[in-house]
């Protein structure tokens, strides 16, 4: 069997990602997170008299609490692998990556395990977020004073 034939065979045999279904699921789950977020924000504004901006902050807090807790009790990994970007792109994905990294490396100790690995996945979001925000503020200051 030649190399080309072999690769063709591998391509045929490997399971196909159901791209259309993935996209639809991501849309529905991701949309539900946004919808639910808006519901929570309205509850916070109407029942607790919070300003809209503060409600957004509490919403982030609530989503992070939910996502870290669900990950810690082992219920979130399954959901993320099914919903994929529907749960990865919202703040829940950020919380999930930190919680699962911390749990995975718990066995290596408090410092060399949890401490060294807690930002293993989420670190790049923080790094590139801060660097890009910093550069953009500099650009803004240079351009507009």
């Amino acid at each position, binding site marked *: 069997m030649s190399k080309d034939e072999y690769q063709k065979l591998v391509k045929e045999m490997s399971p196909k990602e159901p791209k259309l279904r993935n996209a639809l699921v991501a849309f529905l789950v991701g949309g539900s997170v946004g919808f639910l*977020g808006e519901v929570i924000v309205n509850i916070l504004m109407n029942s607790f008299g919070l300003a809209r901006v503060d409600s957004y902050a509490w919403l982030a807090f609530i989503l992070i609490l939910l996502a870290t807790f669900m990950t810690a009790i082992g219920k979130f990994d399954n959901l993320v692998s099914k919903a994929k970007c529907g749960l990865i792109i919202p703040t829940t994905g950020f919380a999930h990556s930190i919680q699962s990294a911390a749990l995975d490396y718990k066995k290596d100790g408090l410092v060399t395990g949890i401490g060294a690995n807690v930002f293993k996945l989420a670190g790049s979001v923080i790094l590139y977020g801060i660097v890009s925000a910093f550069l953009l503020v500099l650009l803004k200051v240079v351009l507009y004073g």
Partner: protein
Amino acid sequence: MLYLKAFLFSGLVCLICQVVLDNTKLTPGHITSSVTVIGALLSFFGIYDKIVAWCGAGATVLISNFGHMLYSSALAGYEEAGALGIFQNMLSNSGVAIVSVVVFSFVFTLIFKAKD
């Protein structure tokens, strides 16, 4: 109406990210980092505030909101206290997300065990 807009916006962003994830070699890490940077860029052009005004929590639940908060807090810091303000203020709004996720994940990690 805001509920529908929130659903549509966050759903669409997740859909686009899923299509990119399935059709390129990028990992979820690449995509979340890029979405954060795009959030900061949209904030730079004054677009992200308009999106939040249009669809409310639909835009703030996404990780792009992290980039938006970093940029807008840093800019507010500059306007208030000059160059030092950029450094003092950048994490002020996004601090909620960072501090809560660190505290919760640490406490839960001490309590629970990894399941495999």
